């Protein structure tokens, strides 16, 4: 039986997807601007972020209304709760994209410190994690979500690598410190983006199966899926 | 819109028909009440002036003499009704309880059917039956025979009313009683029956009102008695029989007394019915 409620749930999902699309775009613009050394692309990031914030408010409002009026149960309940959490993560991701733009603007004011190798790799990996976690949400695919959880480790490893490399630069030549710090901050932003993508994946697994895989419950997630 | 307009165009004709019908029904209702009204007023007109203290206290005077009263008939009727109730009420209520609470299947259907038939047996047949059962073997007319014949008339009325009233008690009341761990008979008697007491009393009163004026059965059983007698194995005077005797007599004075007795009887029956109605309204008001 198709319910009016189902239409409202679909609207909610669509809103999250739209928001996710904006987040993906913002991450793309900010990272590409840095890699291609085109600071004008950073402006787009700011526009996208304000759209993300508007949607952030709308999603929360819609969820409150659904909970108050419909008293959802079972899968519907889990979905609404997951959406509330994913909403928060997406908004934070928007903020991180803006931080990358901010740090990147400062970095691009000066000549390149070194050819960027690891940061583009990190950016690529993080962007695919974001895309896959949102895909998993659309398809309610717990397996896809679990695969996102696995990739977080490699992102963390890349971040550590970048830190080590830049620290050697800074120790060798103090004049490189401002630029190195900016790159370190950007690596940090990318790592946080990866964390948020894993949060989204965990929420998708919860919505689909009811299993709470946060804080080390991942083995359980693998077993369930 | 077409529908609305078509309906509206018939409005005038409909209203005229309505009013004609209303007036006709009203006139017919009046026509139905008219005989009752005539009887009542005639009896009051003839009987009320004849009421005096002697009527209630004196015994019938010797034939031909004026004066005297209906004391023995009043007492006799009272005794007959009392004894008939003693027999008829327990019997009728038990039958009603059985049919309502335990009666399922063919036996109950046959019983119910028989009781309905008994209710419509002409009272004179009841009288003849009692004559054959009690008067002939004992070789005498008696008050007890009269009481029995009246009881036979009362039983189906009381049984039917009791059954109907008990059926009105919703089944979850019984279930609640059973749910408390009470045996079925206790639930029936102490909860269901007790709750319908008002209605059952009403049924009893209606039965009494019915038999108070029965004449035919008494003619074959209690006969009549010109003297004061409250012995149950002897003939006994009663209001309706005495009215009959006096009315067919040639004496003016007796006619007058017969009217007085008729008046008393009508007042009795009327007040029983009115009381019944008032109680029923109170019962209804409570359950609503």
């Amino acid at each position, binding site marked *: *039986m198709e*319910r009016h*409620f189902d239409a409202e749930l679909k609207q909610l999902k669509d809103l999250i997807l739209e928001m996710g699309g904006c987040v993906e775009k913002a991450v793309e613009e900010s990272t590409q601007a840095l890699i291609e050394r085109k600071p004008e692309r950073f402006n787009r990031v700011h526009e996208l972020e304000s759209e993300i914030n508007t949607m952030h408010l709308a999603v929360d409002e819609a969820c409150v209304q659904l909970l108050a009026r419909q*008293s*959802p*149960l*079972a*899968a*519907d*309940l*889990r979905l609404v709760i997951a959406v509330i959490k994913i909403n928060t993560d997406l908004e934070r991701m928007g903020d991180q994209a803006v931080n990358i733009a901010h740090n990147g603007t400062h970095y691009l004011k000066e000549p390149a410190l070194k050819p960027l190798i690891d940061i583009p790799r990190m950016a690529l990996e993080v962007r695919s994690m974001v895309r896959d976690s949102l895909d998993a949400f659309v398809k309610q695919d717990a397996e896809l979500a679990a695969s996102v959880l696995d990739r977080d480790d490699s992102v963390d490893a890349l971040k550590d690598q970048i830190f080590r490399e830049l620290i050697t630069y800074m120790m060798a030549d103090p004049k490189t410190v401002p630029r190195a710090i900016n790159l370190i901050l950007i690596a940090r932003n990318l790592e946080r983006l990866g964390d948020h993508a894993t949060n989204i994946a965990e929420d998708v697994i919860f919505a689909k*199966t*009811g299993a709470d895989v946060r804080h080390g419950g991942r083995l359980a997630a693998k077993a369930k899926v | 819109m077409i529908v609305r307009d078509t309906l509206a165009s018939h409005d005038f004709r409909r209203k005229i028909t309505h009013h004609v019908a209303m007036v006709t029904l009203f006139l017919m209702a009046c026509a139905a009440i008219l005989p009752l009204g005539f009887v009542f007023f005639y009896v009051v007109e003839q009987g009320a002036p004849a009421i005096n203290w002697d009527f209630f206290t004196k015994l019938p005077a010797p034939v031909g003499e004026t004066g005297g009263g209906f004391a023995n008939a009043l007492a006799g009727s009272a005794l007959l009704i009392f004894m008939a109730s003693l027999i008829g009420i327990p019997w009728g209520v038990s039958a009603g309880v059985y049919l309502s609470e335990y009666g*399922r299947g063919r036996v109950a259907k046959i019983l119910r059917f028989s009781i309905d038939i008994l209710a419509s047996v002409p009272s004179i047949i009841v009288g003849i039956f009692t004559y054959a059962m009690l008067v002939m073997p004992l070789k005498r007319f008696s008050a007890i025979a009269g009481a029995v014949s009246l009881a036979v008339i009362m039983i189906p009325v009381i049984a039917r009313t009791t059954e109907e009233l008990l059926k009105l*008690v*919703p089944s*979850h*009341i019984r*279930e*609640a*009683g*059973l*749910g*408390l*761990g*009470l*045996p*079925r008979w*206790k639930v029936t008697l*102490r*909860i269901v029956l*007790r*709750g*319908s*007491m008002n209605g059952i009393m009403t049924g009893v009163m209606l039965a009494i009102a019915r038999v108070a004026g029965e004449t035919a059965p008494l003619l074959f059983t209690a006969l009549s008695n010109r003297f004061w007698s409250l012995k149950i194995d002897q003939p006994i005077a009663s209001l309706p029989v005495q009215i009959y005797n006096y009315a067919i007599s040639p004496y003016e004075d007796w006619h007058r007394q017969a009217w007085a007795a008729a008046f008393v009887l009508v007042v009795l029956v009327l007040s029983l019915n009115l009381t019944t109605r008032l109680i029923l309204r109170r019962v209804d008001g*409570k*359950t609503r």
Partner: protein
Amino acid sequence: MSGIVANPYILEVEKLNAWFGQNHAVKAIDLNVVPHTVTALIGPSGCGKSTFLRCLNRLHEEVPGARVSGQVMLQGDNIYDPGKDPVAVRRQIGMVFQKANPFPALSVYGNVAVGLTLAGIRKRSILDEVVERSLRHAALWDEVKDKLKAPGTSLSGGQQQRLCIARALAVSPPVLLMDEPTSALDPISTAKIEELVLELKKEVTVIMVTHNMQQAARVSDWTAFFLLGESVEFAETRKLFTTPQDSRTEQYITGRFG
């Protein structure tokens, strides 16, 4: 040997079947009830939950043509043993009905005490104590203590239902069955009775049929979902309403049943 190991269940239902003539209304139900819990029975109309409830206190067999098979163990004792007196069984398992039904022509006091008075207990002191205790347990004492002699039917709908609860509690049954106890009441009375049930489970074990899913979710510890005479799923409430195992349960509780 029973009694050496405490029975974890107060009621164990095994392969319970019930018929109305040829109509197989309840099909091979297995269910175990934990003491001092509230178990809710939910399901669409005609699914057999009320019939099942009535089998638990042997009320079903009072319907002409009704039949029961299987066993129901109350504290280890099968209530359907051939030698068992149904009347005695029903004293152990109380029942409250959908329509509040205080007995007519009995006062508030009389109604609460009726289970005792008609069983032969007449001593005033005992009755006074039981009536007060039961009315307090039913959260009704304060409202009626000054009108114990008033007719049972003079109370409001919600109060009447609490009166019926007090009446059932007066005979101290370990298990209380409730058949949609609040479906005829307004929201405030409903809320009062739900609060009452949560308090009651300290004293008795409650099994409640309800067609209000939110009520089942609020009030019960365990929930059984019935469909077409079968128990489709029986689980702790907190699991059944967040992660039901059976897709039919999921469809029913999310309102997708056609």
